[in-house]
């Protein structure tokens, strides 16, 4: 599957079906810090993602501020 990451925007290929929580673990991303998006769907951590999917992992943390 193709995984689209941000900051900076980049894509990585991940092989094999797995749960979102396992995908995030492999990418070393904390589940509470990103939206996991497939098309127009938001995915929960127990959802399965597979070979043909394009998954966007979108950070939710806004920075800066004094």
């Amino acid at each position, binding site marked *: 599957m193709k995984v689209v990451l941000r900051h900076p925007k980049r894509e990585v290929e991940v092989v094999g079906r797995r749960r979102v929580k396992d995908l995030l673990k492999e990418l070393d991303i904390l589940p509470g810090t990103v*939206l996991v998006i497939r098309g127009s769907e*938001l995915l*929960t951590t127990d959802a399965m993602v597979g070979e043909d999917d394009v998954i966007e992992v979108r950070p*939710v943390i*806004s920075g*800066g*501020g004094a």
Partner: protein
Amino acid sequence: MKCRKCGGAAVLELRRHNVAFCAPDFLEFFRKQVSEAVRRHRMFTRDEAVLLAVSGGKDSLALWDVLIEAGYKTTGLYLDLGIYDYSKESHAKCEAFAADRGAALLTVSVEQEVGAPIPEVRAVTRRPTCSACGLSKRYLMNKAALDHGFPVVATGHNLDDEAATLFGSVLHWQTEPLARQSPALPSTHPKLVRRVKPLYRLSELETAAYAFLRGIDYIVEECPFARGATSLMHKEILNRLEEASPGAKHNFLYGFLEKARPAFERVAEVELHECARCGQVTTGTVCAFCKLADQVKRAR
């Protein structure tokens, strides 16, 4: 994962509440949290004109969406920081959002008011970028509200923002900021408008999910100066705590607001004056904004 309310397929798990929701039930939960914040802290009424600071990001646009839907009288305020393409894109997002909903949007240019855009302010002052930017934003929000007759300014600060600010203040035991940290700050001077944060009960994950599910086109890119900001480091630490112990951020912030803040408030009463230069409110003779603008002027 199933929705706690209807049993349908969930789209978001809220570990701190030990629930998951489908899209319609999550949107309802989100709106209820905003209305609870507004009600509990008497932030504003439906008869008051609210000036809402919008950045083009998920939080402020999600808040604007909720307030418009709920029938509040809102006007957006976009502060143009002059940060290259980032500001151009975020301004365009705010304009498109306002145009779609027939909402009013005011724009104030930091360059015109301070004397230089933020990248230049950054170069000529020794302050961290986010500090000079935050100072300018707070000043200009208050000034815009006074100039246009708004009694209240709302910002899109969320639970994570507030927990990170609290964490930073506690690390240095900054008692004045601790006394002032609140979801609603009343007007304590005729030239200081009320400031409110209706999203303080909602996490960043929740505001991002709301914006996504409502189809709000917000700027996902980060401010180019935010990298390395102390507040981001504090958020990362808190997110690690949250992962190990869901509800940690919520308990940290709510516990402070309920139990600790009143003690700081009692000891931190300060006298407010009008700045000798611009007439805005300050604790000294000349306000920090005028000093910043002077510094920029000298360096140009």
